[in-house]
């Protein structure tokens, strides 16, 4: 059957791609269970040759990217969690930064997105254009003035100096506006004719219909903010306040085994949120009832 063959072919292609995509993740996780000795054996030659030319002294040794540890050990996790106890503090710092930003932006952005998508007001397009343009600017543009604003508000070294700009970032507005625009006006008209007030329309019709978009936004916002590095470095002077993302970017060489374990733990919240939210992402909206 031709269609069955096509399905098998598609599945095969997707599988190959999926393996490539997931390889770094699998490598990180599996290497996190390797002992220090094995990591040394597999990777030390990379740190030695930084001259850019072929290092004859390393002989024939090349990096061994093994996917299965010789012996599964929890040594690295022990090192990360117990010996270097900052990990848990920094984890918590990351949570303090990320959760308020994601929660806050969800609320504020959905309100603003509704205004842009479904309500008519003067200057709507121009304002949205401004929102969009400023959002596209890389952070270096607003960095220095941002710092001065935070300073004037007395927020330097305070988490709020990062949380507040994070909440008002226009990414959520942008994302949700696109989704809300797709909701046919006929739904809203029907609701109005049934006598619904503006807030009822917002909470009972618009928001549920945007579940896909809100789920996507939630996941993406979480990932973005969990990974932020530059802002904490600049706005938070206390090393103790730094989130996990900063700590991780500083590990890289010399503590390779540790880095693998730390990365795995770091990834867990994001993976969990993604897996949980995926159900909502999947729920398609079946349009029925209203005849166009």
């Amino acid at each position: 059957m031709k269609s069955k063959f096509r399905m098998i072919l598609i599945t095969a292609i997707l599988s190959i791609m999926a393996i490539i995509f997931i390889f770094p993740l699998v490598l990180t996780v599996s290497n996190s269970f390797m002992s220090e000795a094995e990591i040394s054996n597999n990777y030390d030659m990379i740190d030695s040759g930084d001259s850019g030319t072929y290092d004859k002294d390393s002989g024939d040794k090349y990096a061994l990217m093994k996917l299965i540890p010789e012996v599964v050990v929890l040594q690295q996790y022990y090192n990360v969690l117990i010996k270097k106890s900052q990990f848990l503090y920094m984890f918590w710092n990351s949570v303090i930064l990320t959760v308020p930003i994601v929660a806050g932006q969800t609320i504020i952005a959905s309100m603003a997105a509704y205004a842009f998508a479904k309500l008519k007001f003067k200057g709507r397009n121009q304002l949205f254009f401004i929102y969009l343009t400023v959002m596209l600017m890389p952070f270096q543009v607003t960095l220095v003035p941002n710092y001065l604003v935070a300073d004037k508000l007395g927020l330097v070294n305070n988490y709020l100096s990062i949380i507040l700009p994070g909440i008002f970032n226009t990414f959520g507005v942008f994302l949700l506006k696109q989704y809300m625009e797709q909701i046919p006006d006929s739904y809203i008209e029907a609701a109005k004719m049934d006598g619904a007030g503006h807030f009822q329309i917002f909470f009972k019709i618009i928001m549920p219909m945007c579940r896909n978009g809100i789920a996507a936004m939630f996941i993406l916002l979480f990932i973005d903010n969990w990974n932020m590095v530059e802002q904490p470095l600049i706005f938070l002077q206390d090393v103790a306040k730094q989130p996990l993302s900063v700590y991780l970017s500083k590990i890289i060489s010399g503590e390779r085994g540790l880095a693998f374990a730390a990365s795995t733990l770091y990834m867990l919240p994001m993976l969990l949120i993604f897996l949980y939210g995926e159900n909502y992402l999947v729920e398609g909206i079946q349009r029925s009832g209203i005849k166009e």
Partner: protein
Amino acid sequence: MWKKSFKISENKLAWFFLAPSLIGFAVFYAVPFVGGLYYSFVDSPFNGKFIGLQNYAELIRNPSFIKAVTNTVMFTSLSVPLNIILSLGLAILLNKKLYGRSVFRTLFITPLVVPVASIVLVWQSMFDINGALNAVITALGQNPADWMKTDWARVMVVIVYLWKNIGYSMVLFLAGLQNIPVEYYEAARIDGASTWKQFTNITLVYLTPTAFFVFIMSIINSFKVFREAYLISGDYPHSSIYMLQHYMNNMFAQLDYQKLTSAAFIMAVFIVLIVLTLFTIERRINRMIN
């Protein structure tokens, strides 16, 4: 009783919904943005003299800046279309009733979740002078190389970008695809439209808002790839991947705020032009639908 609520003008209602976002936006984005603009017109951040466009003139003559701009433009114009095409293809494939479809979907997203630090580790392990790739290459009898220091560096960065962001765009396209009512396709099939016709007349058209969004996000993410490039190659990487953000970062480190903000604003102008073009296209297509 409900009729009363409609006496509130739509205008006023809109501003109510907008207010929180607008106030925060003004304080934390608009004002700093304008402040940065001010810096680019003076010769020093502290009590500077107004010198007009002089900073910009100097900038355009600066070879590092030109190099950074060229590289950034080339990188973006190469990777963004690739991103969109590949992720759309994947989304379409995954939208069919495939065995294990949700597993695939999850797998393609995972690159987003992998922290930059791990990517760097894996990267080094593969492409360093003593990395795994060179192991394969020497086994094949060719000469090994420190790949990040060759012209291949550009290809590498594109690959990292695609690997990381295809999942992102794919998720968005998938959500967009699922918002297209199945009835449209059924009606088209009953009318005898071919698969290709269905694709161009239904899928592409109704995906336009999503595509617009994916395009913008791809551009934003193409700037973010700076983080990986920076962690792998430092402040002054191979010349083929020295990009605008490297330039701006170095200016920041040298405390040369004038050059930094001027560069940022030239970037802003280009972004504005791109966005304007996109807006016009989107509006035209929207008019076609409605």
